[in-house]
């Protein structure tokens, strides 16, 4: 809603909704209720650090979770980013199975990933730098 609409009031309301949903109180309430209905296997792994302390995770689990959270790095999603994991895995498997040169394989697959990112960014009207277009196979901007 925040992205797809130009109506300022709708955007503001959507933002307020997101703030409410990720607040500690809502996350704790949701986690407790869903665990009470579905049992311990549905224990909610919330991303809210203050909320996860209040859910039913045991202390030894919390020690591990806290340490993982402190070293976790989130990277942002790009348009066409689904190709990255896919082709990185393909590259790794190709090197394992057919013993090709790792650097060359990675370069080939990086080109495929870049082409898809360029295509998706043009599709959504996001700015595409000229070097990225030149690096693709046909070097003409997609419409």
């Amino acid at each position: 809603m925040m992205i797809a609409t130009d109506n300022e009031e709708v955007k503001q309301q959507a933002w307020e909704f997101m703030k409410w949903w990720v607040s500690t109180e809502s996350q704790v309430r949701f986690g407790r209720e869903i665990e009470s209905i579905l049992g311990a296997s549905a224990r909610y792994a919330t991303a809210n650090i203050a909320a996860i302390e209040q859910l039913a995770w045991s202390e030894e689990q919390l020690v591990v979770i806290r340490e993982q959270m402190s070293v976790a790095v989130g990277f942002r999603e790009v348009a066409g980013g689904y190709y990255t994991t896919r082709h990185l895995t393909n590259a790794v498997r190709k090197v394992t199975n057919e013993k090709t040169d790792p650097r060359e394989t990675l370069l080939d697959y990086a080109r495929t990933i870049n082409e898809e990112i360029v295509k998706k960014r043009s599709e959504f009207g996001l700015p595409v730098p000229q070097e990225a277009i030149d690096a693709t196979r046909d070097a003409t901007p997609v419409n």
Partner: protein
Amino acid sequence: MTTFLKKYVNLRKRNTLIAWEKAKQMKFCYAFLAPYAVLFLAFYILPMITSIYYSFTYYNILEPAKFVGASNYIDLILNDDVFLKAVTNTFTLAVITGPIGYILSFGFAWLINELPRWIRTLAVLVFYAPSISGNAFAIFSIIFRGDAYGYLNSILIDLGIINTPILWLNNPEYIMPVIIIVTLWMSMSTGFLSFVAGLQGVDRAQYEAGYVDGIRNRWQELYYITLPNMKPMLLFGAVMAITQAFGVCDVPMALAGYPSTDYAARTVVTHLFDYGYTRFEMGYASAIATMLFVVMILCNKLIQSALRKVGT
């Protein structure tokens, strides 16, 4: 030409009027049909028409659909290498598991036809179990597991045939044979049951008459008596086999992963999933679906016309 057209239109108009009058007399029959008709319309016909409509647009769910004409189809046929691979894979699977699975079903049904009833029931259960057991083919992902603990790898290493484990489901060379084996294992389903039932219903007197008339061995008996009697069952089994073979997606997805390595196990339906659910290009996905629909109808017509000539 125009007189012919006029006569044709008048004939159809008259037939429609007669049919309408008949329908008004039989209102209750249509009332009984109504619940099923409503559900069928809502869940089969309407999605199909919507899909055909969306295949001519560019639609990414967040924005309203934008009409682009046939460019989805042109891109699909001329521009998409992965779709070519998907079609090759689907055709390979369909050709191998369709006819071979069909012949296997009929062969096994024919072989177990002679057994006493309780052994036959047991055999039917053994053959039919793979297809009713839901996702039991997931056991093959353990048999074909890529490290040294997978059953096949450990047996082969113990026997000394290979030195290091083979990545069956991650190596583009081995993925398709594995999937063909698993799909053949699962191919005996409703068609097989209908064959077993149909073979029981063949009239014994015809066999005796045939032997009196000069049939010399079991093969002739099969071709001249058994198969013509089983024609409805053969048609039904063929339709089921074709539909399943073109729509295959859950076995490759569960075994080879989604997406599979280098698109080696890509079938038309997994290609559709990729474009529809991962990339949100719904127009393109609808174009794939419509094309699959048309191809399936054509294949069905072909198979049915071929099967009409069996036994004659």
